[in-house]
């Protein structure tokens, strides 16, 4: 079973158009959604959660079609939105009681363990916590009810690098269970590179590509050359370029450049930036 299936999803807000979007996250895998601000990452996630109604298309989460009543599916989902919104005046203990009332499989001792491990103050009101601690509280709650799928919208935003690393490790631990899946959006592409099996690039509401991460890293590379060499490449070989004072760095398909050409490995971040810039002229 696929954890998430999206087919032809469309949503329009004024000038912004998302989709049509087709995306599949197989069960047991981690997919990273990469995109600039306003690319449509949060809109996609909110549509999956039934928070917004798509204009067209269908989607299902853990086999349940998205819609106004996703109670059963949400029992098995842990969600962290870009701004964790627990009631402002509540403390960790009260938040835990609310979560325990909401989720059948709420594990109080696990939640307390996460609070300790992530060093989250339990005596402060939620509104008095730093953005990072609020995010950590949301992550702790999402991981404490035996979810099968995590849907995370910028969960590492506002965290310092050390905590970010800890949190990424927690997500990695979560996917040790072969039935567990994660859909995660982030600006911090290095986190996704560490974590994800699949990467989906969104740009201005369109899906540029969705591929296995290892395959992306195998298929694409960076070629350092001059403009004349770049112009001599077959059409479609180069997908984007960056001009430096010394040379041109072009994103190329490894199988489309002449044999023997030295192509350097590309990072997911470079891949995304060069894909979005797009211009090869």
């Amino acid at each position: 079973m696929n954890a998430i299936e999206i087919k032809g999803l469309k949503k329009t807000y004024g000038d912004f158009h998302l989709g049509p979007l087709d995306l599949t996250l197989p069960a047991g895998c981690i997919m990273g959604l990469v995109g600039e601000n306003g690319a449509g990452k949060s809109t996609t996630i909110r549509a999956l959660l039934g928070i917004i109604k798509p204009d067209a298309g269908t989607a299902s989460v853990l086999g349940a079609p998205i819609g106004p009543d996703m109670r059963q599916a949400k029992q098995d989902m842990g969600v962290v939105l870009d701004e964790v919104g627990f009631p402002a005046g509540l403390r960790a203990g009260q938040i835990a009681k609310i979560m325990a009332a909401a989720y059948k499989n709420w594990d109080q001792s696990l939640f307390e363990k996460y609070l300790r491990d992530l060093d989250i103050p339990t005596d402060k009101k939620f509104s008095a916590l730093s953005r990072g601690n609020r995010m950590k509280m949301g992550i702790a709650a999402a991981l404490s009810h035996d979810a099968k799928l995590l849907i995370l919208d910028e969960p590492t935003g506002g965290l310092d690098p050390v905590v970010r690393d800890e949190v990424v490790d927690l997500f990695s631990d979560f996917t040790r269970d072969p039935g567990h899946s994660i859909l995660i959006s982030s600006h911090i592409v290095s986190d996704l590179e560490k974590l994800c099996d699949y990467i989906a690039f969104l740009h201005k509401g369109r899906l540029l590509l969705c591929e296995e991460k290892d395959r992306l890293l195998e298929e694409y590379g960076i070629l350092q050359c001059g403009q004349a060499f770049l112009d001599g490449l077959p059409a479609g070989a180069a997908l984007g370029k960056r001009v430096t004072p010394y040379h041109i760095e072009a994103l190329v398909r490894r199988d489309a450049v002449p044999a023997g050409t030295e192509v350097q490995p590309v990072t997911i971040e470079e891949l995304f930036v060069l894909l979005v810039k797009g211009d090869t002229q």
Partner: protein
Amino acid sequence: MKALFLADLYQLWINFKFYGLFLIVAMGITAFSSGDNNLGTFFPMYAVFMCSMMGMSLLQLDEGSRWNICAQTLPCTRRDQVTGKYAITMASFAATWIPFVLLYAVLAVLGRMTWQMMAVQSVLLLIMGLLAPAVSLPTLFRWGSAKGRVIYIAMVILMAAGVGGALAGLASLDHLPELSMPLLAVLAVAVPVVLFIGSWALSVRWYEKREL
């Protein structure tokens, strides 16, 4: 649903715990002023008005902390969210109305208030306590707390002007059909209750359609 109600109870306790103290003071003033004069009427009315606005205030707090969005990631529906707010509004109203009705009954037993006045005051409190949220909550669920509050105030002004205009337009109250007291009493109780239930249904419908 239980989780949402619990969250609202915590919010009520954190933000409105002094209301309990106000309620005790208001009941004391009502008791010592026999409930029959202006002072004895003002405080119960004010207390009921305050508690009937609590659902509205909780919605505003939810939006401020984004709990209204976060709650939708929990295993509950928008209908549950609306029902939770109506339930907490009913609970806070009952926690105000019942003590006042009991107080009026005690005053009537002691002979410091007539039974007829006790019934009239209790029904007036009921009408006020149910009508105010019945009008305000749908506007908040439809337009959000900032816009909804303005629309609610505008609606109250328009309704007051409409009722005032209609009464002024009547040459004589003799044109009104005569109603027996028991029927009037039943209508006075039934109309706000039916409007409150209808308001819940409208809020569910509007909130399910709203883009957050």
